[in-house]
């Protein structure tokens, strides 16, 4: 049995509406850093609010250490949340906002007044807001408010911290710095962090495990490495780092390899079998595993296409290669710049780097 057990959680915001969370099963271990990842409106916030007790699920249960807490009051749970819209108290200064939890009856007597004062200083420092403690929330920028909300959630050192896109309005540099900071706090405190983001890069960088969601359901739960290397469906593959996904028909399976005919008639070999000949499948290839080749290479899949677009990304170039007919497009990362647009290019990809995906 895990620390947190979510079973068949379902929540709809009204009769006749499509459920925002539609039967979620998830187990989380103590001290884990788990990220809910998914596009806007897929039910991440709703799931988090159910865990925090701010939303009453229609059905299903949430167990904490084996104890059913599904319908407990939010204030009875030792969980703090960083709200997506900050939810700072406008009548209090930033320092008082951060200290809000410490001054509640619940924590009375745990800290002496001097300790309270010191902690406020520490946590304001932690989120780089030491100079802003005396300001009111409306005097802060979006990113500063977000960091104040972060400090407010962490200051009482709860067993579980729920983050709802806590870095959404920070610029790239500060975002990176805060990601590292949150990781460090996680390691240092050893508490359970449940994190929500729609940024797959952030999810990959921070999490022990990623939960990919879509339409109120969970598609895959796995470590970042596994999610990246072995997505279990086309949606996950496309969502994580925009993998190339083409559809094709299995023509044969022999010797541990499967041959797939793409829409333009080209044949692609990939490792593994288990899909019957004649069935429609998806094949996934990562852009960084595809190379632009001068001529045929032994043991590799060779694909012909037309160079349609070229984007400079700094450390590398991204090429968009159109396959003939309606077969689709491939994104390719390369260091070197090939010949001009509109010309034919040959691509090579190892059978080991092609994955079969269920439709």
């Amino acid at each position, binding site marked *: 049995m895990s620390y947190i057990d979510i079973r068949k959680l379902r929540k709809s915001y009204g009769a006749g509406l499509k459920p925002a969370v539609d039967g979620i099963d998830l187990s989380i271990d103590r001290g884990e850093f788990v990220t809910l990842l998914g596009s806007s409106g897929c039910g991440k916030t709703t799931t988090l609010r159910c865990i925090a007790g701010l939303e009453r699920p229609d059905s299903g249960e949430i167990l904490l250490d084996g104890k059913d807490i599904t319908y407990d009051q939010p204030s009875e749970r030792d969980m703090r949340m960083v*709200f997506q819209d900050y939810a700072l108290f406008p009548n209090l200064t930033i320092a008082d906002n951060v200290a809000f939890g410490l001054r509640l009856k619940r924590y009375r007597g745990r800290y002496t007044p001097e300790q309270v004062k010191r902690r406020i200083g520490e946590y304001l420092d932690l989120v780089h807001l030491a100079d802003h403690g005396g300001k009111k929330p409306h005097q802060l920028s979006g990113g500063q408010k977000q960091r104040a909300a972060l400090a407010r959630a962490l200051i009482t050192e709860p067993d579980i911290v729920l983050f709802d896109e806590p870095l959404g309005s920070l610029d790239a540099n500060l975002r990176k710095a805060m990601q590292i900071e949150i990781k460090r706090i996680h390691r240092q405190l050893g508490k359970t962090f449940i994190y929500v983001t729609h940024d797959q890069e952030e999810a990959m960088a921070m999490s022990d495990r990623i939960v990919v969601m879509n339409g109120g359901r969970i598609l895959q739960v796995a470590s970042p490495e596994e999610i990246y290397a072995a997505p279990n469906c086309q949606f996950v593959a496309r969502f994580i780092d925009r993998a190339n996904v083409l559809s094709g028909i299995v023509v044969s399976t022999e010797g541990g390899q499967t041959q797939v005919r793409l829409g333009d008639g080209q044949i692609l070999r990939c490792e593994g079998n288990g899909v019957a000949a004649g069935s429609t499948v998806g094949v996934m290839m990562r852009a960084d595993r595809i190379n632009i080749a001068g001529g045929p290479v032994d043991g590799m899949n060779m694909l012909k296409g037309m160079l349609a677009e070229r984007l400079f990304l700094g450390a590398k170039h991204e090429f968009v290669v159109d396959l003939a007919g309606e077969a689709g497009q491939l994104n390719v990362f390369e260091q070197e710049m090939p010949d001009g647009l509109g010309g034919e290019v040959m691509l090579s990809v190892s059978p080991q780097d092609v994955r079969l995906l269920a439709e």
Partner: protein
Amino acid sequence: MTDLTADTYLPSEGESGLKRAKRIDRRRMLFWVLPPTLWFFVFMIIPYGMLFYYSLGSVDYVTFTPGLSPANFIKVFTTEPYLGVMLLSAKLGLFTAIFSAIIGYPLAFYLAFHAPETVKRFVYLLVIVPWWASYLVKAYAWKTILGTGGILNTMLIGAGIIDEPLTIFLYNQFSVTLTLVYIFTPFAVLSIYAQLERIPTSLIDAALNAGATRWEVFRKVVFPLSIPGILAGAVITFSLGFGDFVAPVLVGGPSSLMISNIVINLLGVAFDWPMAAAIGLVVITLGLALISVAHYLEHRFQHRL
């Protein structure tokens, strides 16, 4: 020059673009500013000017003599009963404001946070509907409730608590305050409700999530954020209570005569218009001061929600 609107956009000879734009702006300004200025002048400046003019004069039996004497203003503060009655009016006005807020708050709170949409509309109606009935009728209703033959006494006698009807309920400051509170509480409710409605639920969620009890959520978040609504309501109920003259006449006694009754007497019975004007001006000045303070406090407690 038949179409005025078209004309405004036609540049005249040698006029620069900026000049033309400014000319059009001026015309537009005139259009929007003139009516309110006129209104303000006719209904505010002129009456106040007349009030001031009268207050400096004097009356000999029934003939008004213009003058420039501050005697009436001095009388307001030195001669009984003016100052005392003004203070009493302020006291009853303050009671009206306080009790209206205390009674109105829970209802406003329920409406804002707990009432389902249908109940909300229904209660809202219940708050508004009494205003369709005349104020007089409502004040009169209290007479029949509190009087010696009234419902309250009948009930108390029926229950065997008293043998003789009590007279303490009516014709005193208590009955005046009660009537004023009853009549003006809706203003407090609506004003507090409007403010409570503005509080984002996410703030309440955040407080609960931080571990606050329901009482702490109220004390630390909801109440502080609702203060501007309480103040706005209090200014209205105080002003209405302070200036009321119907309740004192219907359910009040000699001990609960209020300043408006005095003014009415001066105007209609004593024909002392200058004295009435002086009292009016003093009351208006005090009212302005009070509203300014309340306004300042409201802003002090109004946070961007």
